[in-house]
């Protein structure tokens, strides 16, 4: 399947029992693009993100990431996932391993690197998120912001082609949000393709190429941040933007 987009999702539907969570969503993302997905809770934005690396199985539709047909049963999904980094709201670091252990696990088990090489790559990844000196700390000894940066390092160590962020700063104390956004900004500058579900409007405004507004399982409208935030064309978008900007 030839495509010019690094992510090409078409007509994605997702049912949870009787609940119709995604009602035919198309999302195309260009290489090096930073796409922000916003929308009220329950609008399906996290589900969409989780469909892209098949943590959630779409009920129908097609998803091609970096030329790989994600929904083809013949696709080696573990191999495909290596190219798609994912950062979670609750960090999900492995509590029984050090920061370095967290970062090197997939390097060793999936990428097949030897211990020494994995550790060198792991330390480099931790360096990129500014936590080189915390390599031997366990997650319990790190702040929330540091944990999330380790989680980002765990993903980027595998040199993914796309990074998915699922509300990466929502579980953080306000004073720790900045450090995580700083790392994300650095990634953006290095040319990483990123899809971010988040309500960090300030970040979206000055870093996103495109903002996608979702509501009730559909993409309502999308465009450059300025257009979506200043002059939204749909009533629902206007209402949502108004609500979050009041806070």
């Amino acid at each position: 399947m030839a495509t010019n987009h690094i992510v090409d999702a078409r007509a994605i539907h997702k049912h949870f029992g009787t609940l119709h969570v995604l009602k035919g969503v198309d999302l195309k993302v260009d290489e090096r693009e930073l796409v922000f997905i916003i929308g009220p809770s329950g609008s399906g934005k996290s589900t969409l993100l989780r469909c892209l690396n098949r943590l959630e199985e779409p009920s129908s539709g097609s998803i091609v990431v970096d030329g790989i047909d994600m929904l083809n049963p013949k696709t080696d999904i573990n191999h495909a996932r290596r190219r798609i980094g994912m950062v979670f709201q609750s960090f999900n670091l492995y509590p029984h391993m050090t920061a370095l252990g967290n970062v090197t696990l997939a390097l060793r088990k999936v990428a097949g690197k030897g211990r020494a090489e994995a550790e060198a790559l792991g330390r480099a990844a931790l360096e990129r998120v500014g936590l080189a000196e915390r390599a031997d700390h366990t997650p319990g000894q790190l702040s929330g912001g540091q944990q999330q940066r380790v989680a980002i390092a765990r993903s980027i160590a595998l040199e993914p082609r796309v990074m998915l962020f699922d509300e990466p700063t929502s579980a953080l104390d306000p004073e720790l949000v900045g450090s995580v956004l700083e790392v994300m900004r650095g990634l953006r500058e290095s040319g990483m393709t990123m899809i971010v579900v988040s309500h960090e409007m300030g970040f979206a405004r000055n870093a996103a190429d495109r903002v996608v507004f979702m509501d009730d399982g559909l993409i309502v409208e999308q465009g450059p941040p300025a257009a979506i935030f200043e002059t939204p064309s749909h009533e629902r978008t206007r209402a949502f933007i108004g609500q979050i900007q009041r806070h």
Partner: protein
Amino acid sequence: MSGWDKFVETFFNAKVMWKYLPDILSGMVVTIELALLIVVTGLGAGLALALLRSLAIRPLNWLIIFVVDLFRSLPPLVIIVLMYFGLPYAGPAPSGFVSTWLSLAFVLMAFSEEIFWAGITSIPKGQWEASRSTGLSFGQTLFNVVLPQAFRLTIPPLTNRTISITKGTALGTVVAVTEILGQASSAMSNSYNPSPLMMGAAAYVVLFLPVVVAARWIESKFAWKR
């Protein structure tokens, strides 16, 4: 003779104890052999069943749950007696030793499967998702991420179960296994004196106290700084 002297004469009679010490020691050897076999096979089978169950194959899981619930509800003595006296009618005739070993191993398997399973299911879904999203397979995630965390949670309940079930080796007396309690009670009836029983009790303490200490050590070794 004072009351205290009589008590010592009855329960800690040196002559009787000395005479039957070899019997108690040989009983200890049998108990240790039985206990090791039960622990290794019982825990091994319990873990294997828990891993099978994590594959989420419906009919297989119903079977596992049925077997586990059966062995958790039957009194171990009943299983031993059925295996020793009943099984020969169906063909195989296991010795008292084998009957006791297998019966208690099945019971430990059943209880430890439930404990391992509880440990596995207590690991948050996010751990699976994080690991799978980096490309680790189901099996790699289970062995590298989930089980190491689950084991830590299972050690205290597993230790309790293991000790209480291996103490059940004493039930082997009813099928003529010459373990500690069997030796002690026959020595008691031969000598008309309960001192051998006291030796037996001491033997159990000597055997199981190190197990408790070892369990605490393993527990602290598996702990990580939160």
